[in-house]
């Protein structure tokens, strides 16, 4: 319990830091890009929208920084992230609510899949060190060095453009109306296949290498030798003793590489024009849509923190040393 409370406190501080960074960036940067946007849309904005943008981006020069900060928090806690200019006049929060499920589904499934797959292969190749599996290492290293988005480009070039096996963009068939029915879901799965495979292929290599190293390291621990000396079955030694311990650092590594994976995934969405958060971020960057950019950053950070917390829970469940003394 103490361990989890500590972690919770840490994530609270980190979330606070992220929000404060978000608050400070537009105020520290030279020039006033948002002011320029504001004047461009002058006639189309109602007072409410102008006020929230002013609060979020610190355009109200009369206020003290502290007052701006409390105002900023008040708006955030209201769920008000300002208006998106790309999708004018849709609120940023609405754009995010629409695109977040796509990203969560794509990233969630592919990350879990690549973790399980990579850990499994890593366990096996680490245990069977010196076998033909070692020959796969250079290939794995090479794949892990390829940027996600470039692999996506290649996948599109081959499977969408050349052989037309999969769609090259979008999250579902545009002729369909989003609904929880089979035609829509099957179309969504069909569209998600190529981006999903791209992410899994890019991410799995890293897990394989990390897990293999841990397996090799753990295999020479005393308790693994004891397990062998006890004449336990190979399965029990390999999974119950070696892999069970080797996976622990990989799980804390999971939390830490999440930021990296999310970065890569954002790019895959951009390449596949997949209707998730990453694609919105790209559009926001292109259109200099600052409210949307900041909203997306905030929501990505909070999601990463939530995923980290989940990984911590799994870790606490797997490692008795984090639990309180009995």
């Amino acid at each position, binding site marked *: 319990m103490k361990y989890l409370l500590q972690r919770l406190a840490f994530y609270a501080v980190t979330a606070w830091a992220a929000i404060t960074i978000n608050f400070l*960036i537009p105020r520290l*940067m030279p020039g006033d890009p948002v002011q320029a946007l504001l004047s461009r849309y002058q006639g189309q904005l109602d007072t409410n929208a102008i006020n929230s943008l002013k609060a979020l981006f610190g355009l109200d020069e009369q206020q003290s920084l502290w007052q701006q900060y409390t105002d900023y928090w008040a708006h955030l806690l209201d769920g008000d992230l300002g208006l998106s200019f790309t999708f004018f006049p849709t609120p940023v929060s609405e754009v995010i609510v629409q695109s977040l499920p796509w990203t969560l589904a794509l990233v969630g499934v592919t990350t879990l899949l690549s973790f399980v797959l990579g850990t499994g292969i890593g366990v096996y190749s680490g245990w069977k060190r010196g076998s033909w599996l070692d020959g796969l290492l250079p290939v794995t290293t090479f794949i892990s060095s390829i940027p996600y988005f470039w692999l996506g480009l290649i996948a599109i070039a081959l499977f969408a453009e050349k052989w037309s096996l999969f769609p090259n963009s979008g999250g579902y068939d545009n002729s369909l109306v989003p609904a929880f029915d089979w035609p829509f879901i099957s179309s969504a799965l069909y569209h998600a296949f190529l981006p999903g495979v791209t992410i899994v292929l890019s991410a799995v290599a890293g897990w394989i290498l990390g897990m293999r190293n841990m397996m090799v390291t753990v295999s020479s621990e005393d308790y693994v030798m004891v397990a062998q000396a006890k004449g336990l079955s190979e399965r029990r030694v390999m999974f119950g003793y070696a892999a069970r311990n080797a996976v622990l650092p990989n799980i804390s590594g999971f939390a830490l590489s999440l*930021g990296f994976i999310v970065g890569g995934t954002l790019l895959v969405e951009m390449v596949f024009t997949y209707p998730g958060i990453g694609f919105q971020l790209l559009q926001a960057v292109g259109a200099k849509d600052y409210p949307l950019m900041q909203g997306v950053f905030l929501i990505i950070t909070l999601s990463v923190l939530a995923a980290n917390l989940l990984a911590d829970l799994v870790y606490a469940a797997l490692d008795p040393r984090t639990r309180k003394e009995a």
Partner: protein
Amino acid sequence: MSITATDVAVLDGAPAPEAPTRRARLRFLRGGKTRTGLLMLGFFVLLAVIGPWIAPYDPDAMSDQLLQPPSGAHWFGTTHTGQDVLSQILVGTRGVLIVGFVAAVIATVLSVLIGVTAGFIGGAVDEILSALANIFLVLPGLPLIIIVASFVPDTGDLLIAFAIALTSWAWGSRILRAQTLSLRRRDYVEAARATGESTWRIILFEIMPNLTAVIASGFVGTVIFAVLTEITLAFIGVADISHWNWGTVLFWAQSNQALAQGAWWWFVPAGLCIALLGTALALINFGIDEFVNPRLRTATGSSRKVKMRVGFTPVARRAPGTGAGHPEHSSKEPRP
């Protein structure tokens, strides 16, 4: 000379930790993987230096040879405005490496300063610095850099390198802190403290030499991260696209529908270069890892004749009578 009982007991335990010699510290430079990685890296560094001179064309120069596939005149083909892709790649190498190395140098300096300080001083300083590192560790770096970069009107290479460094120092700092903590408790460091050596001298001469491999590994890892991030930023158009680097090549390819037009030569070379550079750096890091953690060395001693297996020591009896490697067998003759 006689030694005491405790000395024998010490002899029998783990070998006393000694500061590695200079020769031992550089040993990770040998070995197949590291050498291959260094060779590949050397090739790219050479390109970065001489690229602009050996580029066959001006990378910006347009020609009437539009979207040509690779040929003798244009090894990597041409773009939709007739620019030579090979020249763009060659000229772009320098930017990639400069940003990668500058970012890694800044990040490494930051991580050493923060990690070693936290580990060596401990206490409240350690608590604060470690919390700072952990926060930077879980904040997603790429979106943060994208936001910072898009607020800044002038996004030159140096600014990008600095932003990358700011988001990538935490990992190395965490590892260095842990290493410093364990080194601080070693006998020879304790001895130096007891004899009243200054903190700075101890850090510079007793601690740092033992962190060489860890720092090197962190540096190489950051170069990989920085190169990938920089290329990503160029690809989505956040970084300055008027400077050639492999990411800008991909940016123009993407924004001009190279994929839809089947112009594979426009984006394949740049991606392969990134992957090869990444592989080179990863290989170097494997070498360092194996140096730091000897258990990882792939040379398990397995050969075609003898199969090594954890928990089942192989039995490979020598053919009787050869006795190779056992010169002392001669002593088995009857005693005089």
